[in-house]
């Protein structure tokens, strides 16, 4: 490795660690959240340095984009942090043993991880790629070799939506006055681009980095932006249609998985001649559904069905 690369990595990782510490311990809560968001940005760069552009894409859209927005929105709804002065001093004193413990723990962990041979499954994946139905190894692992993980993970996301919606109504229902016409104008420019790039990433997923997750996250970002600019969930969409859009991805996934049982003799097996098309269907359904689910997570509650007669 060239010394410039090493210096770059060192500075990058050092900044990440500092930002992580700030993100947890900064005195002001807003400062903590902003630090954490910057930490996310740098993490995406770190993924690039680790030759993992897929993860960088997901981190850029999910980690840095939506998580940041979610945190900022949460922050706006919390009161000021209450912490007695007594407690703060006590915390500083109690830091020392923790620091020692942390140092020892970090050293041990580092020593262990350095000793790991890391054989990995790279060769096995390469060997199986011809039968995978897609060109991108990561997509092949996600939607074919380990598709069961991905299905459950979409289940986790749907579950998160159900959990959040069970807590109450949506939090975006109340909106403050729009600041400047600049915002809706911006959204009008950006929204088509969001949709376009969503489909671009979905299409890319078959060949290279991209796929359902970043695509869904971009779609969600576009929808959230529109909501923030004053758009409402359309009346016609509320209730069952929205719920179906939220749950549809998991349902499609389940159908394809169980269909494999009947068509190819094993759960989640794709018949070889249809593998690519089936994976594409799953990917598109998952991507769109992820977009809607992430928006639903941002909504924080179910958009209420407005009764007729009321405006």
């Amino acid at each position, binding site marked *: 490795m060239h010394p*410039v690369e090493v210096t*770059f990595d060192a*500075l*990058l990782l050092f*900044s990440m660690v500092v930002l992580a510490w*700030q993100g947890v311990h*900064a005195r*002001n809560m*807003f*400062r903590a959240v*902003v630090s954490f*968001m*910057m930490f996310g*940005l*740098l993490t*995406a*760069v770190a993924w*690039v*340095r680790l030759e993992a*552009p*897929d993860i*960088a*894409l997901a981190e*850029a*859209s999910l980690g*840095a*984009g939506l998580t*940041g*927005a979610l945190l*900022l*929105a949460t*922050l*706006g*709804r919390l009161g000021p942090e209450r912490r007695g002065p007594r407690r703060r001093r006590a915390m500083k004193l109690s830091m020392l043993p923790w620091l020692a413990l942390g140092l020892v723990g970090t050293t041990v962990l580092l020593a262990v991880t350095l000793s790991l041979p890391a054989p990995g499954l790279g060769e096995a994946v390469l060997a199986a790629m011809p039968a995978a139905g897609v060109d991108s190894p990561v997509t092949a692992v996600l939607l074919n070799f380990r598709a069961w993980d991905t299905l459950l993970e979409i289940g986790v996301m749907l579950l998160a939506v159900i959990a959040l919606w069970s807590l*109450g*109504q*949506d*939090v975006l*229902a*109340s*909106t*403050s*006055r729009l*600041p400047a016409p600049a*915002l809706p104008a*911006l959204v009008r420019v*950006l929204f088509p*681009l*969001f949709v376009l*790039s969503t489909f671009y990433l979905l299409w*890319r997923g078959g060949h*290279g980095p991209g796929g359902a997750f970043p695509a869904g996250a*971009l779609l969600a*970002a576009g929808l*959230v*932006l529109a909501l*923030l*600019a004053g758009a409402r969930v359309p009346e016609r969409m509320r209730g069952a249609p929205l719920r179906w859009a939220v749950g549809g991805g998991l349902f499609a996934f389940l159908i394809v998985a169980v269909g494999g049982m009947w068509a190819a003799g094993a759960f989640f097996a794709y018949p070889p001649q249809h593998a690519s098309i089936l994976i594409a269907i799953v990917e598109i359904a998952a991507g769109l559904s992820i977009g809607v689910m992430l928006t639903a997570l941002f909504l*924080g*509650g179910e958009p209420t069905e407005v009764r007729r007669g009321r405006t």
Partner: protein
Amino acid sequence: MTVFYLAGALFLLGNVAVALARVLRGPTAADRMLSGELMGTTAVAVLLLLYGATGIEALLDVALVFAILAAMAVVTFVRRTWPEDPVDDNGGETP
């Protein structure tokens, strides 16, 4: 050439590390948000330069995603964290 790109990326990273001081110092939330903006733009530039160094085309997609999402944080910030006229919302609770 690769070294030139890498050196450029390193320069930007150092630049942004210095700018972090503004996040720490504040004083207002707007200042902190502003440094967040700088970070976003710089990250796009860093990714572009890394693309130059490695030639991995996917990095341009990452940069594109960053550029699209740059507005996201600020819009959430002015609409949710720091709204102009905080309305009395009921916290989305069931009445």
